[in-house]
């Protein structure tokens, strides 16, 4: 029906608004990012000169950039291990059949629906040593407990990862749950007849059948984490020192606070290339894992 020539123009007219919007908000600016990454642009001092790969060479000697790459790696690894282990556990809990199931699933949706900034701002308060919720809770068990979470490098990092998990792990679990529901009940019954217990059927049926689903989810969640920004913006401002400055936070600080536009663009280019490489690799890996 729609094969005739007449419809060719209509097809493009329908697509055009979406294409134009995306070109102006993604394609045009990313080309600009690549271009200005080759310039030294310091808006504060009115400098603008071509430096070739100078920005790139500079960034790999810049302790701030290295610190942010380091924390981004820790953040992604820590958060993803948490997501996968606890996410599967939570998905199994959500999959239990009991009277409160529906209510529990609704509750679990809440963190997903909330803005990260609100959670991050509240966390900053919750992790306060004297007046915060977290330590007050710990003091039920150990009355002498005292720790300023956000003042020390390691504990600040744990805190940021914990907040990230609180917000996104339920969402991860819901998506794992979606995968769980594709596994037929007959499989478990057959396993039961063969004498497999709950633990055995989890490792022999559930996990293998979920592996593709979990791999794909992990890829997407990893991508989102590599470009995370708001948790650190609102919770620690990258501190103490530079210890929680995620790479995305570093880029925006250089671009909008220090007004080192060219330098920020260079970091952004590397970030983009890493993302592109990772997605390419993971997509081809995902094709191989197939059940």
């Amino acid at each position, binding site marked *: 029906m729609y094969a005739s020539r007449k419809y060719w123009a209509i097809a493009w007219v329908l697509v055009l608004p979406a294409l134009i919007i995306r070109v102006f908000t993604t394609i045009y*600016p990313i080309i600009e990012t690549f271009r200005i990454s080759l310039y030294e642009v310091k808006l504060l001092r009115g400098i603008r000169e071509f430096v070739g790969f100078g920005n790139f060479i500079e960034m790999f000697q810049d302790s701030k950039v290295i610190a942010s790459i380091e924390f981004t790696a820790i953040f992604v690894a820590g958060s993803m291990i948490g997501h996968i282990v606890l996410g599967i556990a939570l998905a199994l809990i959500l999959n239990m059949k009991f009277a409160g199931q529906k209510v529990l699933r609704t509750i679990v949706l809440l963190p997903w629906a909330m803005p990260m900034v609100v959670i991050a701002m509240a966390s900053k308060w919750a992790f306060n040593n004297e007046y915060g919720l977290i330590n007050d809770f710990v003091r039920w068990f150990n009355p002498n407990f005292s720790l300023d979470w956000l003042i020390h490098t390691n504990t600040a990092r744990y805190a940021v990862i914990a907040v990230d998990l609180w917000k996104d792990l339920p969402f991860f679990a819901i998506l794992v749950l979606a995968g769980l529901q594709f596994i037929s009940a007959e499989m478990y019954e057959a396993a039961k007849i063969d004498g497999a217990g709950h633990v055995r059927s989890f490792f022999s049926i559930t996990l293998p059948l979920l592996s593709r689903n979990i791999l794909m989810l992990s890829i997407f969640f990893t991508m989102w984490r590599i470009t995370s920004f708001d948790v650190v913006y609102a919770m620690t401002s990258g501190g103490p020192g530079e210890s929680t400055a995620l790479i995305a936070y570093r880029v925006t600080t250089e*671009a909008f606070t220090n007004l080192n536009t060219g330098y920020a663009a260079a970091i952004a280019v590397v970030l983009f290339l890493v993302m592109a490489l990772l997605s390419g690799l993971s997509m081809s890996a995902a094709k191989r894992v197939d059940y």
Partner: protein
Amino acid sequence: MTTQNPRPLPLTLLMWGLALIVAFLILFPLWWIFISSITPAGELFSKPIKYWPDHPTLASYRYLIENVGLLPKIWDTAIIVGLSILIGMIVSVMAAFSFARFRTRGLAVAVGFLLASMLIPDVVTARPLYDFLRSVHLYDTYTGLIILYISGILPFTILILQNYLNDIPVSIEESAAIDGCGFYQSLIYVTVPLLRPALATVCIVNFITCLNNFFTPLFYSNGISVLSTAITQLPLRDNMYAVPWDLVSAMGWIIIVPIIVFVAIFQRQIMEGIMAGGVKG
């Protein structure tokens, strides 16, 4: 269906125990934000922490309305989110229809481009986009923000609608044509109504996405202030506890309450939307 043995009591208790722990971990922080929002600033800094204030007060909320301009912020948020969703849906339906019903090489490239553009992170394009918006006078305007919000929801929305359209047989549109329906009539009167369930789902998910958008209003607006950024822009106090936690909590709770209500009402559609947009296993 095989008959189920009644579940042993310890297992039932374990289930409820786990469920309660999960519910507690999620709900308690939200409750605590509420408590903080009705606690007078002085009492917030008392030890041990009070889980119910001695003198509950709505002073923080009143302060937000009278001195921080809460109502204009709600208005800005409503305009931007509302128009973004509405226009975004129209643009997405058009594109999804075209992608689902016409097959040419050019369109296949266009789809590929739309999907690939999802890979470009906000931070990577932020500065050039900021400069561009300034140069065309769209910085800090409703138009500029709405365009950016729409751009954010387009790929996901088109993807879901296109998947849904692929499952609707073309023959329905063909029979409409035989009955004398023109092309646009059949699109508006036949196809769009069939899309209604998918539209509802996408609309709900987009509502949350737009409401929670923080990056866009943070970097591309200044005077126009939406709720998500407003919480980081509350006036600091000049005492030792410079961050006004009572106001932050109140602002947080104002943002959270509608979301809780919304999630409770649309729980089913949200689940479906998330799962449809999620990874196909």
